[in-house]
């Protein structure tokens, strides 16, 4: 799975993220101490940081296919390994949700990343994460 996919260095998000359109550079921070969570950190003083998780760890049936627009945005052919990251948010009641509707996808081969804004999706931006 994706946790063996090293991403060293700056990943370029040509369009930033919705809400952070001018944030063009991110790094992925991963370690065995944090696993299965990783951090997507915006480079720079005011860079936003996000805790993320592979959406397939939340729902093993999560589809990781891309349409041709998103493949083009990622400079990907479709057969190379890609990193899928769902952004996690904390709720006020102490629970957590993951944005399975709009995952971040990174192409380590081209060191570029995007957030998918699907026209339709069966998933929610606030998919509840199961608590133990």
């Amino acid at each position: 799975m994706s946790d063996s996919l090293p991403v060293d260095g700056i990943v370029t998000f040509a369009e930033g993220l919705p809400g952070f359109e001018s944030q063009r550079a991110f790094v992925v921070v991963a370690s065995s101490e944090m696993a299965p969570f990783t951090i997507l950190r915006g480079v720079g003083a005011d860079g936003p940081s996000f805790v993320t998780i592979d959406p397939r760890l939340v729902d093993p049936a999560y589809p990781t296919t891309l349409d041709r627009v998103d493949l083009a945005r990622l400079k990907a052919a479709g057969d190379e390994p890609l990193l899928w990251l769902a952004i996690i948010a904390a709720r006020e009641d102490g629970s957590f949700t993951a944005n399975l509707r709009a995952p971040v996808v990174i192409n380590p081969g081209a060191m570029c990343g995007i957030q998918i804004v699907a026209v339709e999706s069966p998933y929610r931006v606030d998919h509840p994460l199961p608590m133990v």
Partner: protein
Amino acid sequence: MLVFTRRVDEAIVIGDGIEVKVLRVGRDSVRIGVSAAPDVPVHRREVYDQIRAANAAAAADPAELPALVARLRARVGTSE
């Protein structure tokens, strides 16, 4: 906002090549076609806004991250 009045089959061009064309005009809605380079995403406004709001709610200060990750690891079960 730049405002144009267009008839059916008329279009506007944005930047160096994004074209927005009026395809059909109905009573309550307009059918619009967008032509752009293959790597240009085009979204419905309200979907984009929903993602934007979700990102804003999730964004954290780097200083908050260690505690956040610790809470997640302690309390969240995953399919791993």
